[in-house]
């Protein structure tokens, strides 16, 4: 077990493994996202209140979920890097940031596009929207902080602190709709009792979420490979394998 873990943490092994894994994430992700798009747009029944505008749910909710999921992965990786001083974990955290930032942007943008016809406004400064915007700034701040150091080890440590402290924002985003009065609706799917949404409307949502999750797996594999190459530029294994 320890030997296996040790092997996994070694850059050349991880580099090769990620290269093998990526297509196993990528192709199913593409298939599921296409299926869910078609299902969500053409098959799922129209909402009795929102009409066809509710179809934005299938792109908005998965991207919002992924924006938070990616942040938690980033913070956990940064924490592992800090505690056990594993460089690969820091590299993984660094690879999460641009992916997470793009999901956060997407959640905000699709939310805004949905908000206009339903709420009559593109943006309000309510708790859910504001905390999600802070998440975007956390990602951007993390990336800016990293790029301000020349020494990768100092960049790792400083940015890890930001990532770990910033994780407090994730439960704030999730519970913001319960703690404060917001324009945003409360959770209708991730509830402990029965979800308050018709099952025919849920299938494409679950497929899309799974697709996004696999897409993240693909993207992180690719990003991490690039990051490993950058960090291991002078390593012997790299010279031998290129």
């Amino acid at each position, binding site marked *: 077990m320890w030997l296996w873990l040790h092997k996994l943490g070694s850059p050349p092994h991880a580099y090769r493994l990620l290269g093998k894994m990526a297509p196993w994430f990528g192709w199913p992700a593409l298939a599921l996202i296409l299926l869910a798009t078609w299902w969500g747009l053409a098959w799922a029944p129209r909402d009795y209140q929102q009409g*066809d505008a509710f*179809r*934005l749910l299938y792109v908005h909710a998965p*991207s919002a979920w992924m924006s938070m999921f990616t942040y938690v992965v980033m913070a956990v990786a940064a924490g592992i890097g800090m505690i056990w001083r594993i460089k690969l974990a820091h590299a993984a955290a660094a690879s999460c940031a641009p992916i997470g930032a*793009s*999901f956060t942007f997407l959640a905000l943008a699709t939310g805004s596009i949905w908000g206009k016809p339903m709420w009559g406004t593109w943006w309000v400064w309510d708790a859910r929207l504001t905390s999600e915007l802070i998440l975007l700034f956390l990602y951007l701040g993390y990336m800016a902080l990293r790029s301000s150091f020349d020494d990768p080890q100092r960049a790792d440590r400083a940015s890890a602190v930001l990532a770990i402290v910033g994780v407090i924002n994730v439960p704030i985003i999730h519970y913001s709709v319960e703690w404060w009065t917001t324009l945003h609706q409360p959770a209708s799917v991730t509830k402990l009792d029965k979800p308050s949404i018709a099952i025919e409307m849920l299938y494409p949502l679950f497929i899309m979420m799974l697709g996004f999750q696999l897409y993240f797996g693909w993207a992180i594999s690719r990003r991490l490979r690039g990051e490993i190459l950058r960090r291991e530029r002078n390593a012997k294994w*790299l010279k031998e394998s290129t």
Partner: protein
Amino acid sequence: MDFQEFLRMGGYAGYVWSGYGLTALVLVWNWWAARRSEAEQLLSAQRRSADQA
């Protein structure tokens, strides 16, 4: 289902299609950016090992 009707999205065409279009754009951007950064690093690693050889 009527295709025209499908495109109209019950009058919300502008919102629904721009939302889905933007999603496609961001997913494709991510794909492109990740591949590009990997390819760049690979190229510079190959150059370096060629220089030293």
